[in-house]
């Protein structure tokens, strides 16, 4: 009974983590950008979905769509207003650009966080679930929304896999992550590929944010922990490796759920962080990392 409960809850959380981390790692893999405003964009999506439903009185589906659209806009804003100017700058030495991007996106994230707190308070907001009610799975009362969350996450990740491996655009993205210079030699504009990647990222972060808002609720305080959890999952899985991030997301998700149920909810995140430290010692490139 308890084992089944852990299995079900752990799966939903892990799937959500996986979705959140996939976009994050994709951007790093393709353009070498560690986007520290990730948590802020997820929270922004959830708050926008909440506001659309609660303030503008739209229905749940419209709210969810507005949430994802907001994340998409925020992702483009991050790229065009923060990342691209730094990458194109002639005054910042090339070897320092990564640090500038890190700091820039971090500050950008804090700005979004403060704006959310200013306009919508720092209290948690929850998005009305698309499907309400519970089902009984072998004695475990499971919210249908939890199943919905897991299904949507798996579906979106599967679609992403198809996009990357089966379409021309996807193959260009994949190629850019392996050899950017080669891609430009083939006559493809690298900037266009970056725009595609940021669009994919925005949609993934948006869906993850809205689902998180439905499942657990978010507040402006969630910004830091969400960025940190995506970051540690991606580092654990190997920077830039999408499949590594998926595995790491499930490892972290289940480790947290096990701790919460078997030890105490207060120590939820500790074992996963310890694991991260151990992996850093033994295998600094992460589980499936290439570099």
């Amino acid at each position, binding site marked *: 009974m308890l084992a089944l409960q852990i299995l079900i*809850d752990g799966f939903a959380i892990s799937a959500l983590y996986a979705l959140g981390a996939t976009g994050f790692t994709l951007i790093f893999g393709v353009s070498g950008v560690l986007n520290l405003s990730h948590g802020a964009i997820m929270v922004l999506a959830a708050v926008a979905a909440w506001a659309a439903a609660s303030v503008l009185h739209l229905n749940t589906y419209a709210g969810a769509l507005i949430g994802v659209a907001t994340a998409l806009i925020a992702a483009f804003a991050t790229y065009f207003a923060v990342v691209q100017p730094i990458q194109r700058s002639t005054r910042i030495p090339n070897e320092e650009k990564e640090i500038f991007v890190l700091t820039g996106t971090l500050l950008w994230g804090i700005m979004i966080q403060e704006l959310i707190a200013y306009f919508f*308070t720092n209290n948690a907001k*929850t998005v009305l679930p698309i499907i309400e*009610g519970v089902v009984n799975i072998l004695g475990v009362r499971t919210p249908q929304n939890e199943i919905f969350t897991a299904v949507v996450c798996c579906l979106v990740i599967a679609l992403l896999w198809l996009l990357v491996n089966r379409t021309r655009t996807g193959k260009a993205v994949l190629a850019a992550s392996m050899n950017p210079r080669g891609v430009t030699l083939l006559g493809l504009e690298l900037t266009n590929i970056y725009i595609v990647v940021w669009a994919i990222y925005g949609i993934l972060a948006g869906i993850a944010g809205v689902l998180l808002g439905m499942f657990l609720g978010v507040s402006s*305080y969630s910004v830091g922990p969400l960025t940190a959890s995506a970051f540690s999952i991606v580092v654990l899985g190997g920077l830039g490796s999408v499949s590594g991030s998926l595995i790491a997301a499930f490892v972290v998700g289940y480790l947290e759920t096990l701790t919460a149920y078997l030890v105490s909810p207060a120590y939820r995140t500790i074992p996963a962080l310890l694991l991260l430290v151990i992996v850093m010692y033994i295998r600094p490139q992460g589980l499936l990392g290439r570099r």
Partner: protein
Amino acid sequence: MQFRLLNVRESSLKVEKKFKKVERNDMEKTFRPRAFWTLRGLLGATALGLLATASGQAFAADPIKIGVIAEAQAIAGASIPQAAQLAAEEINAKGGVDGRMIEIVTYDNHSSSADSVRAFQRAVNEDKVHAVISSYISEVVLALMPWASRLKTPFITPGAASNEIPLGVHKDYEKNKYTFHGYLTSASLAMSVCDAAKDLLVDQKHMKTAVIMSEDAAWTKPLDIGYEECLPKIGLKVLDHIRFSPDTTDFTPIFNKIEGAKPDVIITGISHVGVQPTVQWKNQQVPIPMLGISSQATNETFGKDTNNASDGVLYQGVSGPGVAVTPKSIPFAEGFKKKYGNYPSYAGYTSYDEVYYIADAIKRAGSTDADKVVDALEKTDWEGTIGRIQFYGKDDQFTHGLKYGKGLITGLMLQWQDGKQTSVWPKEVAKGQLKFPSFVKVTAN
């Protein structure tokens, strides 16, 4: 003052001359007059400043300044500066205090103790406030207490609950007498919850068992001790006691554990969290009712923030919309809603009262002198929006805490019903009967 400044000028000129002897260059020629003019300017400004202060003291209509340091971004805290402003405007519209207007100076503390301390120093040293109203978070209030003593400024909290606040005043009265506890202590809150639970749950619904669920914070330590003591006395056996970190986001394991203990009711002690456990309680259809302290539920915006998952939640309050605790309660709540668009949180009621009784104390003291105001505040007997306000004296262990009891303040129990806050206890002010969503089983196990 002026003499001393002149001396400084002279000595600095002497130093300059010495310097000149050692090394002469063109730079110095330009440097000397500039320093000279700066000093002159400084002198002039100081003199002007002195003049302004002196003339300021001559006017009787100098405003009474009250600093309000609060969590402007949190739903419980946002009502604090708003309600204070409303009270000040009302007092000023009636001519102020002996012709002196009340001026509210607000500071957002971002729920941080460090920010609050900086704001307190600024309020007293630069903005020259005469009293400070601050915060619903016990940790913040405990951090400000020593500053109220050091800067000798009367200081009242509208919403923190920790017993340590009045106990601290009692322990070192001479030092800490500037702090007043304008909200119920955790001990009184526990009593208020138990009083309501006895009538509503034990007598009406024949419940026998409970699990305490509280966040790990300074204010819940004495609250939990109070719960552990009074729940068995009213006939509710405590089956389990769960304390969780205030940054918990997934409450599934907690509700799971509680359900495992099979209690009739969950007794809550939550303030930093509120929206998330409430929504997850509904989404997971936890069949056990919740009753207790839930600070966020006291604000009207809670319904929207939870998409009405709040329906069925029972929370302790000192006042509430539509509840005539005193003749002042409803006019205040309605006035607040008209001005700000929503009903206030619990700390709004107390903050509103505080501005009034600070003004009353200053009037009685005939001065804004801190020690005189403290003396006058101790003698407060004010009918506010939450009841009759009096403070425990120097000899009581809860010195400067609000007196709790019949005829003073007893608190209420309210329930979220169909998206609205409805009072259900005590009988005299009850507007409705208990009503739960269909997934909650109200039975005795």
